[in-house]
């Protein structure tokens, strides 16, 4: 079974530039998550989709971050304009179930962003 695919693996940009990350979840997984992992910290949920609807985006900095999941499959996360503090690994994950039946999350390898 193919895992969660993410690209790019690495991205270096200057502050105020924009960047986009792409995620392809495991086939059939209804729920997709984007997490931000800053060095030395645990992953922090940015946004959660169920199919193509947003379940939770309470910790997404909406003035600069946006995400979409078209057709309930692939997803993109965009940052515009980037700040130094956005330097982190952006993790995409998917799960078969949702809510009480969430179960295990499967993670991609992450996209490491460095903002200079």
């Amino acid at each position, binding site marked *: 079974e193919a895992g969660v695919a993410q690209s790019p693996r690495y991205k270096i940009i200057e502050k105020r530039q924009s960047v986009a990350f792409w995620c392809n979840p495991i086939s059939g997984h209804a729920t997709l998550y984007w997490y931000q992992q800053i060095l*030395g910290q645990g992953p922090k*949920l940015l946004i959660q989709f169920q199919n193509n609807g947003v379940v939770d985006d309470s910790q997404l900095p909406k003035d600069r971050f946006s995400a979409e999941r078209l057709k309930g499959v692939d997803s993109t996360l965009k940052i515009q304009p980037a700040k130094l503090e956005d330097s982190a690994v952006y993790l995409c994950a998917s799960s078969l179930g949702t809510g009480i039946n969430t179960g295990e999350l499967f993670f991609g390898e992450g996209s490491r962003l460095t903002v200079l």
Partner: protein
Amino acid sequence: AQSVSQHNHHVILSEAASLELGCNYSYGGTVNLFWYVQYPGQHLQLLLKYFSGDPLVKGIKGFEAEFIKSKFSFNLRKPSVQWSDTAEYFCAVIPFSNDYKLSFGAGTTVTVRA
């Protein structure tokens, strides 16, 4: 604020030593509990999980964890570590609440010396 706490930031062990990593959470109701592991250069992967039933759960690679509801704890253990257990370990919790969000602890880096 509700949270997941991991007691140790970095643990250094010799091979064959025993490992125990602490995890406490502050959610008051029913929870699902997880330990995830991230080996160097690899993605996060599930080590073990607890949903219900026997509070002592066994995972991959000889790891086990014990859920103690009265202590809000889910500590991870391995009797004898190997060099290949060098990794970062994350405790995670899904509370049975309105949003069922998976929240992570800050992680513990485990270094096993050969």
